[in-house]
């Protein structure tokens, strides 16, 4: 007997033996390692003209790629983290329909920035634009203005790029149907001509938000943590760069620019703990110079007091065993989450008062 083909919008309950005709919108693979060995699985998003749905496949044909229209048979629908997800196993069939084309209705949820995950393809949000810059691009022979900066709400911030849709610094916006992307462990959203952008009045105060380390569960920007550093990575310290190309030098000369002068830079990585968990913090010279009380113009080769040893000692004295206020972005990498500190400082009394208020809010 012919199985009924469901549209995405019709699939509202968990079920077995489901047949659908869908377009592959995204396709990724991941390996789970455990005591029994390694298991490869696939995950992504499928859609049709009524909506889209995430899927997980324990088996998947190798020739199928993003954009293909496929008929999926004997799939199951299960609830995962409060929403319905399609599961494919060895009994499921995936049949390619190379002659078919399909328009997909974008579907997106209204989310806070802290709720945006790499697995979500489109999103709507209310946020304020900050640090916006613009530049002209040539896309397929057409001149386009790209606006980039950060969008912030009362849970965090996220990088954005807007192609052709004007966004100004300080704009308070309602953005519907922006695309979510992950690049080098950072989440960012893209606004294009299909995204609806309107000006609104926000009912919250955007800015850096204090979090417990235990609350951090994915990439997000605009986070502030209060923590104590318990280590300093051995390779933290003075970094030598080519003044021409800014590449890190292993030797005193840049292989590409042997006549260029050496420039100094700083880098540090250290583990911080706040009593609810720990996280690796990485930081470059802009954050570290302020922390060790040095001006940028002092970090130059002509300054004889700057040596690898003096910098290492200064970093150790200011980081290890010290409470730090760290503001920055949470980044996802192969070793898990880390925080890229853009501003790091020792807490003053007003910061300590803020920490107390943050913790006492639990009991109010």
């Amino acid at each position, binding site marked *: 007997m012919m199985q009924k083909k469901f549209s995405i919008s019709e699939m509202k309950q968990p079920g077995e033996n489901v047949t659908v005709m869908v377009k592959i919108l995204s396709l990724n693979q991941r390996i789970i390692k455990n005591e029994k060995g390694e298991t490869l699985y696939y995950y992504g998003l499928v859609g049709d003209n009524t909506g889209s749905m995430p899927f997980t496949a324990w088996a998947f044909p190798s020739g199928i790629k993003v954009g293909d229209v496929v008929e999926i048979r004997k799939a199951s629908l299960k609830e995962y983290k409060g929403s319905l997800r399609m599961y494919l196993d060895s009994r499921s069939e995936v049949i390619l329909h190379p002659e078919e084309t399909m328009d997909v209705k974008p579907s997106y949820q209204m989310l806070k920035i802290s709720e945006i995950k790499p697995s979500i393809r489109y999103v709507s949000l209310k946020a304020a634009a900050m640090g916006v810059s613009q530049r002209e691009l040539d896309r397929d022979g057409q001149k386009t203005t790209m606006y980039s900066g950060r969008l912030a709400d009362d849970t965090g911030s996220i990088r954005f790029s807007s192609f052709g849709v004007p966004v100004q610094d300080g704009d308070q916006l309602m953005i519907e149907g922006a695309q979510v992307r992950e690049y080098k462990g950072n989440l960012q959203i893209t606004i294009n001509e299909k995204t609806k952008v309107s000006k609104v009045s926000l009912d919250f105060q955007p800015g850096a938000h204090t979090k417990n380390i235990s609350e951090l569960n994915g990439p997000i920007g605009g986070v502030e943590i*209060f923590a*104590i550093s*318990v280590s300093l990575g051995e390779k933290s310290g003075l970094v030598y760069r080519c003044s021409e190309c800014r590449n890190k030098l292993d030797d005193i000369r840049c292989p590409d620019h042997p006549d260029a002068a050496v420039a100094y830079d700083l880098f540090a990585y250290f583990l911080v*703990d706040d*009593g609810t968990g720990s996280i690796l913090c990485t930081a470059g010279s802009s954050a570290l110079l302020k922390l060790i009380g040095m001006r940028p113009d002092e970090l130059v080769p002509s300054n004889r007091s700057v040596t690898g040893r003096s910098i290492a000692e200064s970093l150790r004295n200011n980081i290890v*065993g*010290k*409470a730090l206020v760290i503001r920055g972005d949470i980044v996802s990498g192969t070793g898990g989450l880390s925080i890229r500190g853009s501003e790091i400082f020792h807490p003053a009394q007003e910061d300590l008062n803020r920490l107390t208020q943050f913790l006492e809010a639990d009991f109010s």
Partner: protein
Amino acid sequence: MPRKREFAHWVFSRELRDSKILEERDQEEKAKPYVISPLGTRIRRVIIAGTLMQKNAENNMIKATVTDSTSNYYLSVFSSEFNQNTYAEIENIEAGSSVIVMGRLNPYKTEDRLYININPEMIARTDDATMQVWRTRTRHLALRKTLGIKLARSNPGIGREDLIAKGYAEEEADCILRSVKYYPEYDLRDIEEILSGTSAPPEGKGSGEASEVILDYIRNNDTDGRGCRYEDILEAAKNAGIDHDTLDEVLNTLGSNGDIFEVSLKRYKAI
């Protein structure tokens, strides 16, 4: 697969001092057992802060006492090839300095008592702001658990999911239920007093005076040269108005100072 980093708990020394339970484990497991504290915290590693009160070097080990004003932590730092930096750090820190320590617990259980030493992995001089951050956070963590334990005690049968639904994290819910299981009679009032910042000094003799009494007793009563039995010292301490916990602290401190040593199990001799 990378091993998960052992969680470092921020705990007041009083919570450690009142711990009586060691988690049972497989005989084959090499790591030290977890200590279960009265607030249900399952501890193998800690981050503590306080004032370094004293330190003594003997052979290739430094013993030190750190106080956070609720009680004392006892540190043992061995000089080994894996621990040179920590050993060098503590050698250079003077008594009276504020320190922050991350270390692993080294518990030792006798029939009636659990002794807990900390083997530091990191020790550093620190500043007032760090001490304040540590105290504020440690107080907050303990206060949340204390409120949860009271809630669980007054609602027998309350489960993990119920506690999570009331806003406790999974880890906190586990702590609360462990406390109810292992320490049903533990008096939370002392901890609450500490957390409210109104802790009164312990009744009876101060630890300085108590040290003198105990040291005198051990010096004067080691009649057969085999050291004084713990039971006899305890009896003498009670007669002098020194309670059980204070005696244990005094014996630890006298040992750290190099005034006495444990000549055999539970027998103490003056040096």
